[in-house]
C-alpha cells in the first residue's frame, strides 16, 4: 500500500471517533479508529450505552415475568430470544411441550429469522452506499411478517407470546393460510434482493475481499451464526444439537468460502431460502388442532435446584441462556450469552488494514443489535 513516494512525507496517525450517535453504528456503539491516511491501524470499540442490567432484574422476578426482558434484549428477533429462555425454564422444570406448540414455535422463529435478515439487508444496503431502495424493500417484506406477528401475539416487536410449557394462547384460525400468503411475498422479496445485491457489479466490487477473517480466528473469537458460517465453519445449533422438531426437517447449513463481507451477506440471503423451506415443511407437518399448553400447569412455576445452559440458533448466532435455580420461583442467576458481543470482539481483527469506509461495511456485515450486546 505504501509507495516509495509516500514514504518521503512525514505522516501522523489520526484518531477519529465514530459514534455513539452515528447512523452507521446501528445503535449506540462507539469506536475510536486510529487511521493512517485512509487505512485503519487500530479499532477500539466502546459498548455499554444500553446496559440495563436485565440479568440482575430477572433475578428479582417470577419466571414468567422474565420473558419480557428477553424480548428487549434482542428486539429484532424477539421470538428467538424468548425461545431460549422458555426452553431453559422448561428444561429445569421438566415441562413437556405439546407437539403443536412446538411446530408453531418453529414457524414463528423462522419467520422472525427472515424478518431480521431482511432488516439486515436494508441496513447493510445503506452501509454500502445504496441509499433508499434496499432499505424500503427490506422494510416492506418485514412489514408483512410483523403484521402477521401482530395478529397472533398482539404486538409488533415485543411479543411475550411463548410461555414455559407452550404458548400464551392459540394462533388465529387462518394461521396457515396467512403464513403461506406471507411466504409468497417473502419468496419474491428474496428474488428482489438477489437482483439488487448479488447481481450488482458495484455491490460485489465493494464487498468482495473486504473484512476477511479466517475460520480459525473466527472460532477463537467465539463468533457464531452467519458471521461464522461465512468463514466456512458449518456450525449451526439447529443441526448440531437439534431442538424443537429440527431433527425431522430437511434443511442445509449454508457456509461461505472466503469469510469476507460479501460471504456474510450471501450466507444470510441463502439462509432466507432455507428458512422458507423449513416453514413450508412445518406447515405440512403441523396438526390443525391440539393442545398448546400441558394440561396441568401450576399457578406458581417453581423449578428444582439445578442449572442449564440452553442454546438456540438466533438470526445473529447462538443465543444462550444460562439459568441457575436454587429451587424458588425465580432464577438464582440468569446469564444471557449474546451472539453479537462475541461477534463484535472480532471487529478489530476484521477491520485493521482496511479502508475507513470499509470498516463501516465490516461493522454492518456482522449485523449487531446493541441492545443484545449490552443487555
Amino acid at each position, binding site marked *: 500500500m505504501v509507495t516509495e513516494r509516500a514514504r518521503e512525507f512525514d505522516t501522523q496517525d489520526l484518531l477519529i471517533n465514530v459514534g455513539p450517535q452515528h447512523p452507521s453504528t446501528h445503535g449506540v456503539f462507539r469506536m475510536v479508529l486510529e487511521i493512517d491516511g485512509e487505512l485503519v491501524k487500530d479499532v477500539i470499540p466502546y459498548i455499554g450505552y444500553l446496559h440495563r442490567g436485565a440479568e440482575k432484574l430477572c433475578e428479582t422476578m417470577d419466571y414468567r*415475568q422474565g420473558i419480557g426482558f428477553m424480548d428487549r434484549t434482542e428486539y429484532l428477533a424477539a421470538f428467538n430470544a424468548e425461545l431460549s429462555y422458555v426452553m431453559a425454564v422448561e428444561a429445569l422444570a421438566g415441562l413437556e411441550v405439546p407437539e403443536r406448540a412446538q411446530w408453531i414455535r418453529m414457524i414463528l422463529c423462522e419467520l422472525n429469522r427472515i424478518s431480521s435478515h431482511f432488516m439486515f439487508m436494508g441496513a447493510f444496503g445503506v452501509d454500502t452506499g445504496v441509499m433508499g431502495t434496499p432499505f424500503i424493500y427490506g422494510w416492506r417484506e418485514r412489514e408483512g411478517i410483523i403484521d402477521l406477528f401482530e395478529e397472533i401475539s398482539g404486538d409488533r416487536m415485543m411479543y411475550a407470546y411463548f410461555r414455559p410449557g407452550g404458548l400464551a394462547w392459540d394462533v388465529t384460525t387462518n394461521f396457515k393460510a396467512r403464513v403461506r400468503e406471507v411466504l409468497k411475498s417473502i419468496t419474491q422479496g428474496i428474488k428482489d434482493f438477489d437482483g439488487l445485491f448479488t447481481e450488482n457489479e458495484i455491490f460485489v466490487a465493494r464487498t468482495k475481499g473486504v473484512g476477511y477473517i479466517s475460520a480459525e480466528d473466527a472460532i477463537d473469537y*467465539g463468533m457464531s451464526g452467519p458471521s461464522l458460517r461465512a468463514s466456512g465453519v458449518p456450525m449451526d445449533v439447529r443441526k448440531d444439537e437439534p431442538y424443537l422438531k429440527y431433527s425431522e426437517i430437511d434443511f442445509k447449513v449454508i457456509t461461505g468460502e472466503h469469510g469476507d463481507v460479501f460471504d456474510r451477506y450471501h450466507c444470510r440471503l441463502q439462509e432466507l431460502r432455507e428458512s422458507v423451506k423449513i416453514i413450508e415443511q412445518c406447515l405440512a407437518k403441523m396438526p390443525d388442532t391440539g393442545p398448546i399448553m400441558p394440561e396441568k400447569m401450576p399457578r*406458581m412455576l417453581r423449578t428444582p435446584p439445578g442449572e442449564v445452559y440452553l442454546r438456540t440458533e438466533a438470526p445473529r448466532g447462538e443465543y444462550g441462556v444460562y439459568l441457575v435455580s436454587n429451587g424458588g420461583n425465580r432464577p438464582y442467576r440468569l446469564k444471557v450469552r449474546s451472539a453479537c458481543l462475541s461477534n463484535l470482539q472480532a471487529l478489530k481483527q476484521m477491520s485493521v488494514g482496511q479502508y475507513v469506509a470499509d470498516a463501516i461495511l465490516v461493522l454492518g456485515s456482522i449485523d449487531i443489535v446493541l441492545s443484545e450486546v449490552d443487555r
Partner: protein
Amino acid sequence: MTTEETTQPVADFSGTIWAEVDRALSGVTVRPERGLLDVIAHIPRDEVVTALRRLKTDAALHFDYLRSLTAIDREADGIEVVYHLYSTDKKHNLTVKTTLPTTDLNVPTATTVWRAANWLERETAEMFGIQFTGHPDPRTLLMPEDMTDVHPLLKSHPLAEIEVLQGEGMGYPEEGA
C-alpha cells in the same frame, strides 16, 4: 475427591464424554457432576487454566470454542466462575467450574487459551469484582469507566426500590393462596 464419592451416590456418566475428559485431565483434581445437558467438571482455580488448555489441545476432545464465560455469586460459599466449552468439529460440550473464596477473588485469565475470553472476562470482572490475573486489557466493558468499585451482579448489591416492588407479588399469587 474420594470423600465426595463416598458421601454422594456415584453418578452415571455413561453416554457422556466424561471418560475422555478424565483421561485428558489426568493429574488434575477434577470432580465431575452430571448436568441436565452437559457434564460439569469442578476444577480448583490453580489448575483451571492448565486444564482448559489441555482440553483445547487434546486431539480427541478439541474444545476450540468458548461459548460463554460467567460467574455465579453463591454468597457464603464463594463465587463460581463458569466456562462453557464446545468443540466445533467433534460437536460436544463441557462445563468447567471453579470456585473462588469471597476473600480472595482472583483467577488466572483464559485469554491465553481463547481470545473469546477477553470481553467475557472483562464483563465478569466488573460485574462480580473478580480479578482475572494476567488479563491483557483489564478495563470495564459495560459499566462506566470510573465505576470500578460497583459490582451489580453480586447478591449484596442493593436493588432500587422499584425493582423490589416489581419482584414482589405482581400478578402471581402464592400457590394455594
